[in-house]
């Protein structure tokens, strides 16, 4: 049952109710506050460990590539859908681009082919969901499995090719050229390039989701698809576009991941969808659709990686990580349910 809360209009009055209302409206404040608390606490308690270039650069690098996937997932959840294929798209993209490079395709050509292929599959899945009416949970689970199987086939082919046709330059799936690795391994100001790419992509999508008329449509569709349709929004096309965006961003993440690692691997990216979902829910994006902000999703993602960093610095046993992550997700879901009940009027 929704609680209808009347806004307290008395100026200058501070009340817990006001604070809760503020947080309910701007849920990105929760992960942001937690990040600020974490930074201050660890800067004070572990200054020689936390405030080092290794630690900060590693933390931001660890977050930067999944940030692409988090942005795609946020759009999908706001849109009222879900995309469980993102991790498998990352996996497929990493082995596909590596394989194409080993086969002799120029680096930028290999990247373009990989990303375009994934975007095309994303479009097909979008058509299945928005056009045919297949549930996005099932559709993306299926497409994810297909991407995974395809990725394994591509890796086997590429590995066999590399073994049977030794490259005079020593290139194979496990030894990719510097011209490709430099896309992710070069540093500027002590931070590897993916950090800057992530900043750019985050900035673009934060602005688009908050200012662009087109992207704001995802909120209306997520809140009420039928009403959005009646108001003139082209729901099907817009939904299909979301799947294309999600697949494209995940594919870019896969390319960056293999460039960063320097070798293709069938394990890279698998499971990333769960972290992405955790991140966006912590950031205030609602499972029900129509709510949440891109900046909240980004803060949620950054918070997840801050928690990992905190556990490492405090030497917590590694089997505690998943427990903590699960508890954080549960808390976020409970908060989401509670805040969703509050309808602010006035």
């Amino acid at each position: 049952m929704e609680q209808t809360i009347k806004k307290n209009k008395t100026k200058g009055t501070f009340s817990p109710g006001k604070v809760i209302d503020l947080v309910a409206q701007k849920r990105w404040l929760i992960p942001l506050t937690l990040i600020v608390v974490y930074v201050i606490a660890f800067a004070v308690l572990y200054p020689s460990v936390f405030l080092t270039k290794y630690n900060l650069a590693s933390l931001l690098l660890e977050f930067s590539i999944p940030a692409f996937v988090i942005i795609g997932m946020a759009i999908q959840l706001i849109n009222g859908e879900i995309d469980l294929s993102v991790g498998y798209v990352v996996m497929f993209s990493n082995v596909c681009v590596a394989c194409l490079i080993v086969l002799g395709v120029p680096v930028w050509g290999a990247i373009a082919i990989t990303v375009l292929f994934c975007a095309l599959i994303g479009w097909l899945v979008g058509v299945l969901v928005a056009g045919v009416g297949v549930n996005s949970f099932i559709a993306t689970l299926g497409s994810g499995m297909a991407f995974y199987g395809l990725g394994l086939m591509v890796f086997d082919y590429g590995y066999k090719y590399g073994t049977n046709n030794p490259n005079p330059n020593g290139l194979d799936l496990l030894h990719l050229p510097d011209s490709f690795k430099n896309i992710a391994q070069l540093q500027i100001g002590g931070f590897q390039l993916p950090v800057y790419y992530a900043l750019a992509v985050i900035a673009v999508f934060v602005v688009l989701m908050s200012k662009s008329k087109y992207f704001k449509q995802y909120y209306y569709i997520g809140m009420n698809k039928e009403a959005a349709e009646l108001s003139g929004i082209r729901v099907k096309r817009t939904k299909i576009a979301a799947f294309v965006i999600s697949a494209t961003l995940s594919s870019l993440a896969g390319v960056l991941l293999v460039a960063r690692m320097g070798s293709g691997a069938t394990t890279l990216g698998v499971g990333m969808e769960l972290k992405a979902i955790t991140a966006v829910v912590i950031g205030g994006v609602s499972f029900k659709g129509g709510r949440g902000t891109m900046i909240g999703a980004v803060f949620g993602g950054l918070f997840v990686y801050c928690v990992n960093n905190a556990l490492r610095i405090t030497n917590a046993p590694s089997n505690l990580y998943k427990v903590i992550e699960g508890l954080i997700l549960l808390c976020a879901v409970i908060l989401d349910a509670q805040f969703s009940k509050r309808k602010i009027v006035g």
Partner: protein
Amino acid sequence: MKRQKVMKWLALAMAGAMTLGGCGEAKAKNSSSEGAETKTEDVSDEVYVWACQHNSLPLFVNNDYIGMDLIAEQLGVTVKKIGPQEIDLPAFVAAIEQEIPQKPDGMMVVGWDASLATAIDKAMEAGIPTITVDADVPDSQRLCFVGSNWYDQGVEQAKAIAPYLEGKKGKAVMIGLPGANNTVEAANGYTETLAKLAPDIEVVTQVYDAQSNAQVVAETVGNLLKSDSSILAVAGFESACGPGISQAIKEADMVGKVYGTCVDAEAEHIQCIKDGTIVAACGQKRHFFTYYGVRMLYDYKHNNIDFTGHDAEIGISPIPTEVSTGFIVVTPDNVKYFDQE
């Protein structure tokens, strides 16, 4: 008078000799007491790190953990474990990188993948002595590798399977972790040795991906056996392979027709030998990985051997670059000695 002079000089000479002897003795005492101080040096605040992903595998818990606990107790140091619980390379790399500011006294990295080279190099550049254990990352700046010689692993498996393939014509397939250097080395050893011992057997070049999962191995090998009746041997280069290969051979009803060999000799691998599906389990002496790994790092830090007097300046390492820990080959002939009961 003359006699008194002689006596006087004799007395002086004796006093001088006693004095010199006493100094020498004192110096020797000082030296031995310096040695005693070195031996009783407080190292309780020294921390050595073992970095591995999927690090709570029973294989690690039953072997590597024991080795590191033993050496930690013996030396009086602390050995810490870092890394993700699951197979997650980016998280593994991040764990290594984020350990650097904690400035451990040394780090052992299990070389799951060549991509760990960057993280290992960062640790070395930060002044943390870093070695690889179990599987190597040869493209990195690591100081030493402690583990099995994986080329020899492949050789041992080929030597074990060769008698079963005598006079037969067919194929042998391999399964492991294609991305790992140890699998590449083992595959080379197996292929080259079998080419000499069983020249009528074609070793399929491609190494299939075990994904560290026995079920995946069973499905992959099962599919291979069903699709190609010329396969006579399967070699596994990852711990999950033995049980997976065994299951596949049994399910395909090929016991006695297709033979498997595998790495590691844990209880589940021993059982496969008793089942008749695996003819050799080449067990690694895993306790040694971490035991000698910590030992190497400790010796690097407390080095007493200097070849030139300027070793540190000119980059001469005080520890070996490779410590080969050997194998224990379990076969149907000796399996009774390895009965876990």
